[in-house]
């Protein structure tokens, strides 16, 4: 109640003594001699910023031609406290978000437009509160798609559990894993497995780790050393776990050597230099490059080529794929790498998830084709109905 009274008083004082108030509060304008104060004729529309956690307020306004070339300040009033939240803005933006508010408190805003000696002021806005939302409506489409994908996954995993078997097409690079490990063993050389310079929070690195599990198991079965020089310490510890478990699964826990999964350095080219040196000295017979690679991709792959190793690469970095294709024997392109662990393991539940991915792909193909036809009819032949349909489709996407 007290607060409302204060607010009321505040509003009265603003309307009655607006001239004085402005003069005394505008500390920011010390160097602008105010000779004239005019009314701007602009209304500030304030509202709670939608789809946020309740700590911001959006201020909007429509600029008119008489204010072209002006600079704009926005002030926030809270009780007796008048704070400038934006200075010297270009008013043509038409929108500003105040991110420094507390949820549930009433605020008012006004703006000043300045050019040379002229200062124009808006009226105070209506009081507004910031409120947090429980659902982000902008992400409704993502939500529907998530439900769709989760549904597809659940359905195919359910089918797999009921005993349905699924087909997976041949992936050449993965059939070569056995050959690569075998040849390394024959030559009595170790295998080198590089996870790139990603972190454990990167999906390609995680995918690389899952493939590592399968490859390490093969290596253990063939009784061949597997070296994993790492870029990130968390990746290193995870890789140690993976290799150790693979050796245990293969019934050779004694053959596991912790020091073969080692840390190099967390420096892109330092890592490349270290791994290159290691390749030259250890001369691995097979090199796997599975994970997130950037510019160092070709430095590693070319050195691997020069020592005559079989190389199987895979990454999701589209910019590096051409280099792997050029320098390595086999390359897993993008999604092939993500599906690799499923391919190597062929566990029914996992295969189910791959089929679910394919289902989504079919839906995308249809959406693209429908979009194309609508676009052709709407924009190509200018049929209004289809134009609207097309716009609608683009918008929901």
């Amino acid at each position, binding site marked *: 109640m007290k607060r409302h009274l204060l607010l009321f008083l505040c509003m009265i004082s603003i309307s009655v003594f607006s001239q004085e108030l402005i003069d005394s509060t505008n500390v920011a304008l010390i160097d602008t001699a105010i000779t004239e104060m005019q009314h701007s004729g602009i209304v500030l529309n304030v509202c709670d910023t939608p789809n946020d956690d309740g700590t911001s307020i959006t201020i909007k306004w429509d600029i008119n031609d008489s204010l072209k070339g002006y600079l704009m300040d926005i002030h926030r009033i809270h009780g007796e406290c008048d704070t400038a939240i934006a200075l010297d803005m270009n008013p043509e933006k038409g929108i500003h978000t105040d991110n420094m508010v507390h949820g549930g408190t009433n605020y008012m805003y006004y703006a000043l437009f300045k050019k040379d000696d002229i200062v124009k002021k808006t009226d105070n806005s209506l009081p507004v509160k910031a409120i947090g939302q429980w659902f982000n409506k902008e992400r409704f489409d993502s939500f529907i798609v998530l439900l769709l994908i989760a549904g597809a996954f659940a359905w195919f995993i359910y089918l797999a559990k009921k005993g349905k078997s699924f087909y997976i097409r041949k992936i050449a690079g993965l059939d070569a894993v056995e050959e690569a490990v075998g040849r390394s063993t024959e030559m009595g050389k170790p295998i080198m497995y590089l996870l790139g310079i990603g972190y454990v929070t990167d999906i390609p690195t995680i995918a690389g780790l899952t493939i590592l599990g399968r490859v390490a198991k093969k290596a253990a079965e063939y009784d061949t050393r597997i070296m994993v020089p790492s870029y990130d*310490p968390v990746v*290193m510890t995870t890789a140690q776990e993976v290799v150790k478990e693979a050796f245990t699964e293969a019934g050779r826990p004694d053959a596991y050597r912790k020091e073969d999964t080692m*840390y190099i350095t967390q420096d892109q080219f330092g890592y490349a230099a270290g791994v290159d040196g290691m390749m030259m000295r250890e001369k691995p017979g097979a090199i796997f490059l599975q994970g997130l690679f950037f510019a160092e991709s070709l430095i590693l792959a070319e050195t691997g080529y020069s020592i005559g190793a079989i190389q199987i690469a895979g990454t999701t970095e589209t910019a590096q794929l051409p280099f792997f294709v050029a320098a390595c024997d086999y390359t897993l392109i993008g999604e092939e790498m993500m599906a690799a662990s499923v391919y190597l393991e062929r566990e029914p539940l996992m295969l189910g998830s791959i089929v679910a991915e394919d289902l989504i792909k079919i839906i995308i193909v249809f959406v693209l084709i429908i979009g194309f036809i609508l676009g052709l009819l709407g924009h190509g032949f200018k049929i209004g109905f289809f134009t609207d349909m097309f716009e609608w489709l683009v918008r929901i996407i």
Partner: protein
Amino acid sequence: MIKGKGIPLAISFLTGTIIIIAFFIPHAPFGSFEEISLRWYSIIAGFTMLLGVDSLLRLHTNKIKRKENHWAYSIVLLFGFLLIVIVGIISTIRYGNAFLTGSGFMYMYDNMIIPLQSTMFSLLAFFIASAAYRAFRARNFDATLLLITAIIVMFGRVPISEMISPKIPIFTEWIMSVPQMAAKRGIIIGIALGAIGVSLRIILGIERSYLS
């Protein structure tokens, strides 16, 4: 129970699902969940760093102790490591912050790390040439396509092509913005789906080899 995979799998499931749910709920406390997780991750990584350094130092001290092949270079590595740490500490004491320009620490960074890094990086100029020479053979239809587009784009990027015909650079740009773009988009859509697949498999506990 505690030694098994039960608890870790539950943790993966919970963190994964909460972060996905938080994507749709801006309200506190969900709104800031992603940011908090990332900060926590960097703290965990900070500690794990010590494990990494421990692994490396142990590897090299062992090499030195056992006088394995090239053990002398391991001394160089340890020396480099200790040197920059000591210089860093001295710089921190002297300047209050080792990362100020002019500190010995930054001097080492500028004159040792940077040239070494950029020289390693520039090795690519050579490797890209030798990879092109070796890989671009017209073995079959695909390889021929790869080779021809690469040559056209390579040629279209240098001034000589413009003197022969101004249309060559334009055609090069077209290749980059049409067929190249199409292939890239297709691959990226696949990757996005694949990433969703990997994530769901892990969150749902179907794929557990990372914990194995």
